[in-house]
């Protein structure tokens, strides 16, 4: 599904990613962990198509197509979803209007007719229940005045509406209390299907108590320095990141 080969990238001339390779197959959940500043969010930004990151080397293929050639909206319509670390507020634009526009753009891309107003509202209701989001949120402007937890839940709600093939959740757990964390994680698990994949970017292990990854990668200083099963996350939780840092430095 997603194939990253030797990806190098820079922001304002400063190299952030120093050669990343990653294979994500349909149905898999990958966790990317690592200390602050290791390049986790930069990787997410590249996959979503933010233009402040410049790719200097390497390839990213998504379902056989060159992802780096696609505009951000095209990536979305092809099935890439980014759950934002800091969801953006858009005053004056209601969630209903926002989601309706987004869903119908996706449908148009697949050659489907736009949803009627009643079908759309029905879909919204279903998905709201699925992710246990407060009904009133849908009548408010996009993320405006939402609490941190509401914003994150709203990301999962949007994910439910758009049914992506590849969801990238960028530190979705940050700033969540334990109840909100459980709701967000449950949402992700319920949306899991055999043919869609998830990349969970996180600093802490605790989200992985709820979302069980197939593979855990540790990103450090722009490189994936270790990939292993879910037990790696527990090891990190116990020992912190320092032993990884030391290991890497010793190898060099």
């Amino acid at each position, binding site marked *: 599904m997603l194939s990253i080969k030797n990806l190098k990238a820079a922001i304002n001339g400063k190299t952030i990613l120093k050669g990343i390779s990653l294979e994500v197959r349909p149905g898999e959940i990958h966790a990317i962990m690592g200390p602050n500043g290791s390049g986790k969010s930069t990787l997410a930004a590249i996959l*979503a198509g933010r233009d402040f990151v410049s790719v200097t080397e390497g390839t990213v293929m998504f379902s056989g197509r060159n992802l780096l050639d696609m505009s951000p*909206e095209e990536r979305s319509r092809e099935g890439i979803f980014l759950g*934002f670390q800091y969801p953006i507020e858009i005053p004056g634009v209601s969630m209903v209007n926002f989601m309706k*526009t*987004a869903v119908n*753009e996706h449908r148009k891309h697949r050659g489907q007719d736009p949803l009627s107003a009643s079908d759309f509202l029905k879909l919204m209701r279903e998905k709201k229940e699925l992710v246990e989001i407060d009904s009133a949120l849908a009548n408010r*402007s*996009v993320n405006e005045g939402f609490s941190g937890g509401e914003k994150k839940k709203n990301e999962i709600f949007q994910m439910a509406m758009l049914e992506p093939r590849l969801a990238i959740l960028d530190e979705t757990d940050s700033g969540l209390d334990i109840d909100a964390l459980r709701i967000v994680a449950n949402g992700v698990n319920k949306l899991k299907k055999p043919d869609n994949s998830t990349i969970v970017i996180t600093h802490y292990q605790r989200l992985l108590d709820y979302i069980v990854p197939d593979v855990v990668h540790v990103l450090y200083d722009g490189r994936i320095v270790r990939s292993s099963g879910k037990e790696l996350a527990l090891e990190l939780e116990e020992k912190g990141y320092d032993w990884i840092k030391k290991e890497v430095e010793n190898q060099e």
Partner: protein
Amino acid sequence: MENDQDNIINDVTSGEYKYGFYTDIETEKIPPGLNEDIIRLISGKKGEPDWLLEFRLKSFRHWQTMKMPSWAHLSIPPIDFQKIIYYAAPKQKPAVASLDDIDPELKRTFDRLGIPLEEQKHLSGVAVDAVMDSISVKTTFRETLAELGIIFCSFSEAVKEYPELVKRYMGTVVPYTDNFFATLNSAVFSDGSFCYIPKGVRCPMELSTYFRINAANTGQFERTLLVADEDSYVSYLEGCTAPMRDENQLHAAIVEIIAETNAEVKYSTVQNWYPGDKDGKGGIFNFVTKRGMCRGENSRISWTQVETGSAITWKYPSCILRGNNSSGEFYSVAVTNNHQQADTGTKMIHIGKNTRSRIVSKGISAGQSQNSYRGLVKVLRNATNSRNFSQCDSLLLGSRCGAHTFPYIEVDNQSSIVEHEATTSKIGEDQIFYCNQRGISTEDAIALIVNGYVREVINKLPMEFAVEAQKLLQISLEGSVG
């Protein structure tokens, strides 16, 4: 990043002006220049009574003692008033008895503008007075309206057929000495619409005037007078377009509204004069005086404007709240793009007791444009228990444009409450990207955000025009955000 943002803005704001065509029609013009002979000539062409000629001459003499105002936040190139042609009229038979007598070329012009002159073709009952250059071409639905006693005709006809009404009301809200452009208009005004709603009548259809500038080197100086007698109601809409030309053209109009006891007038404008090209060449100078007088108790006047056109806009639709318990409203969306300049807002003058006013102004600036809100709320000593609420929001698209707010508040009593809120926001790159990531293109994202921003004002427009206005906003901002 700033550059990218500006590039996107350029793309989105470079929409073409759709109404820039010119109609090749035989036009009767008088020589350029302004003096008493010209004024006599205009008055003579219209076969006016002496009292009106006197009014014009009095205005002209006063105008000669005035200077063009310079207080607005606008940079206006010098205007040579002697080079302007003050009267131009499409040639046609003197009295148009039926539609068949109208030049087909004229009919086609208004068809292209989406203003069919055939009554049966018109969508949901809207009566139109179509004005090209200096004269009214055709007023539709006159007979239907006349059955209710409603008078809706061109200003020139009103002068001939209802001189008493015109004499009684003209200049009572905007006196001939009012300001430089209003005084100029009082001297040289050519045509416009006249409307009278008799006591107790609710006008069953929207009335509208469509202004079209066609001839080159001319100015358009129309005058509209709207009188709503006791217990009556009318909703009125005004639209305007002009051909694309490299020279600037002057439009200096007057609109006067009088609302008697318990009367209600809603006046909506969708202003789409040619704004000039991307480099700021050409376009209409729109210097307009619009004012309503709530004369009677419980009367209401509401202005709604969507301003997307003109190179320079200078206008402040205002309400004088004289009757006790009267109310005035002003809802405005003003869009400026490329090199457009707008200095617009309102004046609410509270004279009667318990008078209320509400101001909602939404400015959108893109390109290198300058957009100013200027508003006065004045509550006189006797206007006890009066209320005003003002909200002025500015939305910036890109980093080369400007938004300014100049609120003036004068309150002379202790029992009145005046509130003012203002916000300035910018469509951020992050907002656009967030939309992109959900599959929404940059252009659609801008439309979504702008529509959300102006919704409160657009909702005040009559249904059909709200749809038009929304489309117009999209075209005006096509190619423009970040």
